């Protein structure tokens, strides 16, 4: 019974990680690729960690080995580290791409650049 929960979580994790990788190939410019890849892989990794936690707690309940409690707790710590660092890194990449002159595909007016220049003058 609990195996089906693990299968469902793993299916969601693999599907969203694949969608994140496919977004890198299907989207036209840097910003949309960043949008697709970062969101989808973060969401997929959340479900991968949930599957591991359910598996570890199930094995802890079955065997009583404290190794599985350690596995569940460390997986949650890894997830928290990923959730704190991933959006920050994506924001840094987007800001750096804009500051080094890359515009979105089909953009005509760069209002952010005008606003920044207006602020400096």
């Amino acid at each position, binding site marked *: 019974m609990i195996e089906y929960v693990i*299968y469902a979580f793993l299916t969601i994790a693999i599907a969203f990680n694949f969608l994140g990788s496919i977004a*890198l190939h299907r989207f036209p410019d840097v910003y949309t690729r960043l949008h697709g*890849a970062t969101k989808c892989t973060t969401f997929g*990794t959340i479900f991968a960690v949930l599957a*591991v936690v359910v598996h570890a707690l199930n094995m802890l309940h079955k065997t009583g080995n404290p190794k599985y409690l350690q596995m569940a707790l460390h997986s949650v710590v890894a997830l928290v580290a990923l959730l704190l660092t991933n959006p920050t890194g994506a924001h840094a990449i987007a800001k750096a791409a804009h500051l080094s002159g890359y515009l979105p595909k089909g953009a005509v007016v760069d209002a952010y650049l005008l606003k920044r220049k207006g602020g400096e003058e």
Partner: protein
Amino acid sequence: MIFFYATLMVGVAALLAVARLILGPSVPDRVVALDTLNTLVVAAMILLGAAYSRTIYIDIAIVYALLSYIGTLIIARYLQGGLA
């Protein structure tokens, strides 16, 4: 055993990210692909730790996540024109 096959599928998704890393027309495209690849490697390490029942793989995944974040930040600061 299901965790091992899940790791293989995440590895295939990581290969797609590697293809964008090689093909990417501009430097920010490659940085985005590298960031995606880092997240996928962390997910694969956690799943492999569950597949082999080794907690040390998950500890290495924590360290890898933090170090890859620092690497991404440094590349982004270099890209926007120095460490100003």
